[in-house]
């Protein structure tokens, strides 16, 4: 599976109570980027360029419909798979799938993590790109806190 990569600032923002992963809490979204992420330097969405919107890709990305549950001392954050379809033109190129908090305003849109597709990809008309969390279909684990 594509490895989870943490933005270093995320843990600080988590400890500062800037993230609420519960379903009734904040909206977390994934967006597509073709810029190489920096774990140490990127902290908010504005630090890491998003691909242009259009042709089936909505600027800002897609809601992962996050939920949070705790059992036996482990909190599990889950999300629903995301599907992008190129319509009327191409989407990309892009290589990275980036998760961020779309609700938090201070700081604005703090980054959480990213996954690397490992090569730049351009979707042609009619083609789709699906991101499945931990191979869950449609819902899977984004992260656990133990």
């Amino acid at each position, binding site marked *: *599976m594509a490895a989870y990569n943490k933005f270093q600032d995320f843990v600080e923002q988590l400890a500062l109570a800037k993230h609420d992963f519960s379903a009734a809490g904040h909206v977390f979204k994934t967006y597509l980027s073709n810029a190489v992420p920096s774990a140490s330097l990127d902290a908010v969405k504005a630090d890491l360029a998003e691909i242009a919107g259009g042709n089936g890709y*909505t600027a800002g990305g897609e809601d992962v419909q996050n939920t949070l549950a705790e059992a036996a001392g482990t909190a599990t954050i889950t999300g629903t798979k995301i599907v992008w379809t190129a319509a009327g*033109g191409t989407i990309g190129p892009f290589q990275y799938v980036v998760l961020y908090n779309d609700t938090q305003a201070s700081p604005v849109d703090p980054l959480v993590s990213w996954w690397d597709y490992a090569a730049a990809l351009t979707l042609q008309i*009619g083609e*789709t790109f699906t991101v499945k*969390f931990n191979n869950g279909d449609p819902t899977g684990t984004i992260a656990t*806190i133990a």
Partner: protein
Amino acid sequence: MAEATETKLCPCVRKGEVTVSKADLGYRVSCSGCIASVTDKTAAGALAVWDRVSARKPAKCCTKPENETVFTTPTKDLVIKCGVCNLRRLPIGLLSALVRGDVRKECCEDPANLVPQQVRDDLVVNVCRVCKCRHFELTVKPGKLNAEVSDIRG
């Protein structure tokens, strides 16, 4: 007085805007609302083909599924051909659902048409037998955040 420009709209249910864009093999005219597109060497040529082909009205024989053949042109445009009268038309209006961006072509929605290829352990690409579209499925690993305190002393 500024010259008025007319926006061309597709006759599909979404009335998508018809736009011209540069493609690998010339210029592509496509609808923003459905999957119809045509490609030609020049933008004017592509627009002329669009006008001509999109205006075609299918006959009774054309709309029977058993007579329809869907194929992809070398320029990656999708065309529906009638096996009886040989009419070729654009797949205008094939997209009727928009659910979280998953608006596949009808041929791609049939699992029987999709051939899965395991490219990597985290990546499956389903290729449609009909239109050759690729459908990428990336599986991403969950993060593990460790907040354990193993040694608390008073």
